[in-house]
């Protein structure tokens, strides 16, 4: 084989490799997306964001999948940093590692909202500035987490997390970030595993914000 033909062959192989790598990068297997609706005090829809893709599963999600979901960390779990910034190394602080079923008024896990605007990082372990539960200034009332069970249409399967936040603070609140936090282990350790900046979502006094996060996989 002469050098020109060899060069072309190598170029073709490299092109095919690059194409495959490009396809890999462009096509997540499980996509997280979010949408939100703003309603007034009468329940009338004021705004619907439509679906927006989440970009930010953080490192804790990989760690929780490894340790807890796939059971690979049962004997020697990899450390996970909780929302308080403490590194947890005991499996007893991780099991049930992905549960998000927070009740009304529980803001320490489940879907959370915040006012932080710092860029998302794989190393995020909490929201930048979480909005607290309550009716005081700058606070939102956290509803109970609810879920939409998996459903399949054609080749796509989806399930949904939902939480309603109500503004009884007396003023407007600008939500800038959302997160998903789980409540794990025997001693209620909390782990952030998804954080996304949303741009400003203004929730006026008396309004409610319904936040949905969908997990979708398509064959």
């Amino acid at each position: 084989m002469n050098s020109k033909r060899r060069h072309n062959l190598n170029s073709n192989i490299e092109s095919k490799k690059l194409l495959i790598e490009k396809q890999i990068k462009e096509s997540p297997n499980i996509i997280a997306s979010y949408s939100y609706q703003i309603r007034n005090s009468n329940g009338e829809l004021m705004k619907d964001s439509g679906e927006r893709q989440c970009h930010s599963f953080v490192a804790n999600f990989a760690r929780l999948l490894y340790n807890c979901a796939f059971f690979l960390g049962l004997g020697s779990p990899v450390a996970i940093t909780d929302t308080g910034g403490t590194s947890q190394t005991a499996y007893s602080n991780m099991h049930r590692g992905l549960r998000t079923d927070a009740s009304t008024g529980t803001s320490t896990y489940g879907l959370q909202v915040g006012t932080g605007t710092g860029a998302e990082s794989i190393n995020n372990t909490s929201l930048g500035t979480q909005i607290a539960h309550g009716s005081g200034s700058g606070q939102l009332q956290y509803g109970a987490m609810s879920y939409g069970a998996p459903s399949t249409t054609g080749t796509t399967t989806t399930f949904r997390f939902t939480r309603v936040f109500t503004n009884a603070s007396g003023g407007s609140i600008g939500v800038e970030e959302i997160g998903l936090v789980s409540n794990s282990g025997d001693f209620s350790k909390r782990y952030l595993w998804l954080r996304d900046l949303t741009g400003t979502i203004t929730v006026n006094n008396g309004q409610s914000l319904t936040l949905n996060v969908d997990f979708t996989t398509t064959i």
Partner: protein
Amino acid sequence: MRVYFQFERHNKDGELIWKSYRYRSRSFVQAFIKQFYVLFQHTSNIATTDTGGASRTVIVGTSTRSTPHICAIGPGRGGRIALSTNSTVFTSAPTVAITSDKVGIVLGTGTTAVTPTDFQLATQIADGTAASTLEYFPSSGTALTISNPTGSFKLERLFRNSSGGTITVNEIGLYTIGSTNSIPFSFCAIRDIVSPGFAIANGEYARAIYTITVTV
């Protein structure tokens, strides 16, 4: 979240003789999504079809069964994974046993297109040394690494062809053990077609790797 898979073939001396492209896994199937859902919502049980085709109830944690999971650890050739009845503890005196080809990475010869409701490989290659079987080594996870903007880990399994003939692999899957009432069952989490398929000659080893990645 992205998942890839890749293969290697090694000769009888363990020398690498072929390595595939890294393929994008396309196919989390319903059983995985349902188990995933139970881990997150932790409130209500859900019916899921196991790898034998029977409907099983995947359950949330209780006072005696506190760890819902999608266990992907698989024993090696002829082995069984031992679980207590509450599916949370590996014991030396199992009340339930899952055999090597019912959990972890599995291979098959089927070429049927994947659908969301697939609950098993189309034609799984069994663990063994007889014709058309492969010896299954243990299946486990490795290499959890975090490097901004990516976190990833691998699920791996080694297979040896001691069947006396060549075997062509056309499909790959991940079987897991789910949290079910009293007795753990095997569920198909992922099924992918390997196209083109590849042949494992008698005496050769094949290494299969799934890489699971999350990215900001």
